[in-house]
């Protein structure tokens, strides 16, 4: 495997300076032209062009269902196109399989990991490419190489650790390390930051810069507009399976990007919410969970306001919501609902009370993926007298009610008998939300309500939150997306290490304040030192 000289870091000037030279480094590393793909009768990609230059970070941007996944699946060799040509280094190639694509220098890290959870990091890195002497595994050399790769990438993951014991971020790193094993010239990253903490994101961006300098070209998919300008060089926008435009990342504003993506001018991204806080509806007192991930948390939420729970991924903010809903065992402390201390905490009783909880992972905990939309929407409210009588379903009423709810949430397409699985991420999320609005809610807890959701659907979710607050519902918004917290909350609790670290209200809710409270993680050692002194 000989690396071409363009990959070496010896001659950065040649690559960087000659953007207008007609030959050499400027020539596209990868050229995709007129690529098309049908799934059944659906045109997923419609004659799309795409060009990738050496050492650039090229962002693919578009709504769910725009064709990004299909395109990267084709480039990774997982899907064969129906039409069009792909050329690498000016030579036309066909990518027969994932293995073949890797051999030709294209590796992909997909959003859904391809790791074997029960194997160790090093076993995973070499999975399918084990080194052997004769028929015996050469474990020593693999371990050495694994450690080498992990170190070179600057990751902090033990090679001998079992993957299931790692955090999501570490799993992501393992996945990247695995992709880097073959020294790819093109690396595809599919929403790599969706589960990472702020710090891990920065680490990833540093890694991307390093790779870029060594000549690796990166195709980067993300839904986070803010990230694009941070890492991207160029952006190709897709919409409805069609190529829309390729623009320069630095000179294109976020608004322009979003408008390119949705194909129409965008109103205000975040709705203006006016709060009329009423009586306290949910009060948590000195709550500690049995697993210790929430410790002595006290907070309260009033009707008609949105209270944000902010903090880094894994800080325990998620568990607070789960404990209230009764799916995380409580060791001590209490939860009061409408002024009454709750003795019994379990999902069915809570739903009956008017306390709803929207889980963060809709595929794992939210939806019945292979059941019809109608059954998904009605599942949490079948016990209401509108839906059933003496345990017998009123199927006519169910049909009408669920249809109306899905319509109100603008689920598209509005096909109530289609399985939830057949929808895009954004619409799945809307189906999930419709499920809870059949009931009369007094308190609504939402955990990461816009994860993996495209921009258009995001604005709809935000409108939904605003509507809840306007109706006087007490809304708890648990989110790792800072802009969401900043723009939608009336008050914010910053959770750190399982406890409430700070509380902000009104004008105090600024990016700076919140980040300072977040950032305390890094200086915790200092705090302790100061106390000791």
């Amino acid at each position, binding site marked *: 495997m000989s690396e071409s000289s363009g990959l070496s870091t010896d001659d950065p000037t040649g690559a960087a300076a000659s953007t207008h030279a007609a030959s050499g480094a400027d020539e596209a590393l990868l050229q995709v032209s007129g690529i098309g793909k049908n*799934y*059944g*009768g*659906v045109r*997923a990609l419609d004659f799309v062009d795409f060009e990738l230059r050496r050492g650039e970070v090229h962002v693919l941007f578009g709504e*769910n*269902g725009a*064709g990004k*996944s*299909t395109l990267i699946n084709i480039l990774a060799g997982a899907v064969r196109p129906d039409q069009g040509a792909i050329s690498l280094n000016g030579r036309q190639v066909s990518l027969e399989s994932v293995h073949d694509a890797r051999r030709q220098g294209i590796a992909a890290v997909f959003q859904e990991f391809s790791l074997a959870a029960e194997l160790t990091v090093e076993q995973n890195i070499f999975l399918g490419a084990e080194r052997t002497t004769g028929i015996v595994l050469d474990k020593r050399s693999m371990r050495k190489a694994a450690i080498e790769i992990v170190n070179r990438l600057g990751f902090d993951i033990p090679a001998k650790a079992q993957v299931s014991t790692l955090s999501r971020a570490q799993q992501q790193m393992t996945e990247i390390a695995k992709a880097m094993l073959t020294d790819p010239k093109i690396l595809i990253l599919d929403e790599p930051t969706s589960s990472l903490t702020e710090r891990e994101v920065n680490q990833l961006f540093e890694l991307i810069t390093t790779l870029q300098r060594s000549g690796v070209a990166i195709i980067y998919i993300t839904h986070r507009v803010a990230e694009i300008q941070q890492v991207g060089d160029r952006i190709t926008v897709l919409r409805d399976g069609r190529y829309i435009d390729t623009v320069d990342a630095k000179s294109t504003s976020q608004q322009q990007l979003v408008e390119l993506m949705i194909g129409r001018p965008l109103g205000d991204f975040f709705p203006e919410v006016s709060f009329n806080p009423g009586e306290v509806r949910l009060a948590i007192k000195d709550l500690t969970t049995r697993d210790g991930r929430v410790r002595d948390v006290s907070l309260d939420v009033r009707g008609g306001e949105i209270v944000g729970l902010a903090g880094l991924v894994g800080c325990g903010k998620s568990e607070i919501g789960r404990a209230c*809903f009764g*799916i995380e065992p409580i060791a001590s402390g209490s939860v009061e609902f409408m002024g009454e201390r709750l003795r019994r905490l379990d*999902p*069915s009783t*809570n*739903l*009956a009370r008017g306390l709803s*909880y929207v*889980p963060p992972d809709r595929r*794992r*905990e*939210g*939806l*019945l*993926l*292979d*059941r019809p939309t109608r*059954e998904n929407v009605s*599942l*949490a409210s*079948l*016990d209401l007298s509108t839906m*059933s009588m003496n*345990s*017998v*379903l009123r*199927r006519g009423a169910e049909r009408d009610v669920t249809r109306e709810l899905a319509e109100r949430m603008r689920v598209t397409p509005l096909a109530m008998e289609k399985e939830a*699985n*057949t929808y*895009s991420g954004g619409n799945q999320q809307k189906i999930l939300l419709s*499920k809870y609005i059949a009931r009369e809610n007094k308190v609504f807890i939402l955990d990461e309500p816009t994860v993996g959701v495209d921009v258009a659907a995001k604005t709809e979710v935000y409108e939904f939150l605003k509507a809840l607050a306007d109706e006087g519902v007490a809304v708890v918004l648990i989110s790792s997306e800072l802009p969401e917290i900043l723009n939608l909350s009336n008050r914010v609790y910053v959770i750190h290490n399982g406890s409430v670290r700070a509380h902000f209200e009104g004008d105090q809710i600024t990016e700076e304040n919140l980040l300072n409270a977040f950032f305390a993680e890094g200086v915790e050692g200092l705090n302790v030192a100061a106390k000791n002194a």
Partner: protein
Amino acid sequence: MTDIAEKPAGNPIVAAARAVFMNMGILPVLLVASVIFFALMEERFLDGRNLFNVVRQTTYLAIVSMGQMVCLLTAGFDLSIGSTMALTSVVSALVMVSVLAGSPEAFTLAITLGLIAGIGVGVIVGSINGIGVAVFNVPPFMMTLGMLSVVVGVALTISGGVPIYGLPKVFKEVFGYGRIIDIPAPLFYTVGLFVALFFILNWTKMGRYFYAIGSNRRAARLSGVKTRKHLLFAYIICGVLASCCGLLLMARTGTGESTIGQPLVLQSVAACVIGGVSLFGGIGRIENVILGAFFITLLTNGMNLIRMESYVQQIVLGSVLILAIVVDQVRLRYMGQLRVD
């Protein structure tokens, strides 16, 4: 050649066949193919009396398959139904015989107590399975495999391994040979059970929750479904249906035996899977399960008519089951490709 095959619009019959296959799976294909095959091989096959026979024989398999289906819907299954049938027949027969030994004229009492005891066996075995699976999270495979052994062991111990004779004639009449409103008794009860279960699965909260639990147990729980309670119910329903089948078979054979029912375990799973019930839970229609049971009985009947050796029949049955699953996987993969992003 391939060009033509790839154009579905070319031949409307091919297109229609494809649509049927995509929507209903392999079952209609298998049914039509086997009917044609056996009709050509043996003229008695299409005889009205023979086909009616097949329908009557289908009843036993249909009842256990419905029970099996309920477990499969919740992403579990029940391997102990054969043993449950055996224990049901032994216990029920013993109760009837001993009541009659005390007062030889008390037929009604003997039958009533026998039926209660028999159904009771199903409730108890189902409850134990259900508690193991729902409360202690024992994988259904292990739980019901263990119970398979335990329950048949109990049946053998109680009966000493010998058939129990001397069942009241009325019982054999009403549940085995007789006719009710001119319908053979077993068919009559099967239709009754089918209607009841159809109603439960499609028109009650409980039925909907079975599907929900099998499709995504966590999501069901977070939606307020009492998952443990409903899992327990699923296994009880399955146990009771196995008992019903055990009682009907006992009425037919006229003896309580600890050996009945074992082949029905594999066949019930086969009937469900061929009828489109997912082994991973959450998907399946009861009508198609009945059709699946009918197909398997039809196949056995046809093989008997053409005098195929019983050992060879086992080979065919197992192969058809595997083939059905393979074809279904291919179908799902093809359907999966229709989904976008």
